[in-house]
């Protein structure tokens, strides 16, 4: 009988578990229809990834958490524009990258926060090698911070968020070819910065 699923749906109210298990697109629709709980689940589900994207741009916890909060506030106001043709995570990254690029543009380079001090893993069996690796990592992060913003965004999304070039083009605008070229220039510039 056609109406049976409806009867079930109406008769058996969803639990918090159902909400937590729902697809992102369902949550978005529920949120747009007024469900605050659905938005809460969206935040819980994506907060870590959004925070990590922000952290990679600013490399400190305070700014990263401020930016991540801003991302979700913008999402709250802008989810009605989410088309559903990309993953919600990709859409959130786009919002996040925009927030980060705005923050970078608003801040003169010499006021960028210093990179966090290097950290040597004491569990490592070879402290000398660990120290060398850690120094190299610090240099790499410093070099990333010197890249032009779009190259930096491309690099972070590709290497650490593991997004495809197509997704990156969707986030930053422009063609897939341009996204690949940007990535190439980011890597080449990094190499040059690390050699100098």
């Amino acid at each position: 009988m056609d109406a049976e699923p409806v009867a079930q749906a109406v008769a058996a109210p969803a639990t918090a578990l159902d909400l937590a298990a729902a697809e992102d697109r369902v949550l978005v629709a529920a949120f747009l229809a007024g469900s605050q709980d659905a938005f809460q689940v969206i935040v819980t589900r994506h907060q870590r990834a959004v925070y990590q994207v922000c952290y990679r741009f600013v490399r400190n916890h305070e700014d990263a958490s401020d930016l991540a909060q801003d991302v979700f506030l913008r999402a709250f106001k802008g989810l009605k524009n989410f088309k559903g043709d990309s993953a919600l995570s990709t859409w959130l990254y786009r919002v996040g990258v925009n927030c980060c690029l705005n923050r970078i543009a608003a801040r003169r380079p010499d006021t960028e926060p210093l990179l966090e001090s290097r950290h040597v893993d004491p569990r490592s069996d070879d402290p000398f090698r660990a120290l060398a690796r850690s120094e190299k990592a610090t240099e790499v992060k410093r070099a990333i911070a010197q890249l032009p913003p779009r190259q930096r965004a491309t690099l972070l999304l590709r290497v650490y968020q593991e997004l495809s070039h197509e997704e990156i083009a969707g986030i930053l605008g422009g063609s897939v070819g341009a996204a690949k070229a940007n990535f190439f220039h980011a890597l080449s510039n990094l190499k040059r910065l690390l050699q100098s």
Partner: protein
Amino acid sequence: MTTHLSPQESVTALDDVLPESRQAHLKSCASCQTEVDGLRAMMVDLGDAEDVPEPSPLFWDHFQSRVQAAVQGEMVRPARVSWWSIVASVRGAVAAVAAVAAAATVAAVTIAVALYPGAPVAPVAPMEDAQVAVADDAMALETAEWAFVSGMLDSFEPNDVREVLAPSTLAVDNAFASLTSGEREVFAKLLSADLAQGME
């Protein structure tokens, strides 16, 4: 000798998806190999440099509260906004889950709710959509649902409803239209739960 790899092709080579003819060039060209190897080594260095310290578990609870507070600050008359959007949407969702309505009907029903909030409408509004063939069982359900909705509508001023519903109905309908039938079922379930909660 074919041309050297372009920047885009070098990046494609990193992903091991270079077309065969270009792959052949790469194999035979020391200069392009050096270029691609350099990029690959850079990728390894980048991987080693990866570390986002995990904040404390307490941070995430705190973060959710912060977002919640920021969001509340943005909302105008939050309770009522939620309420009416939900009422309108549950109606659309339930209709569609029953397979009696296409997305267009959801829009029609939602708009009908917005435009004729106080009217004793009964199932007339959905029937106006000539494309929809309503099954008897679903029809009975719709009637009950509609009576409930119109009962709720009576308790608010028409202008309130219109003001609150107008900005978001299209977005809800669009989001809803993109869902699969399975997702619509989940959606209806979620909203009926939310609705039940709102009545408590």
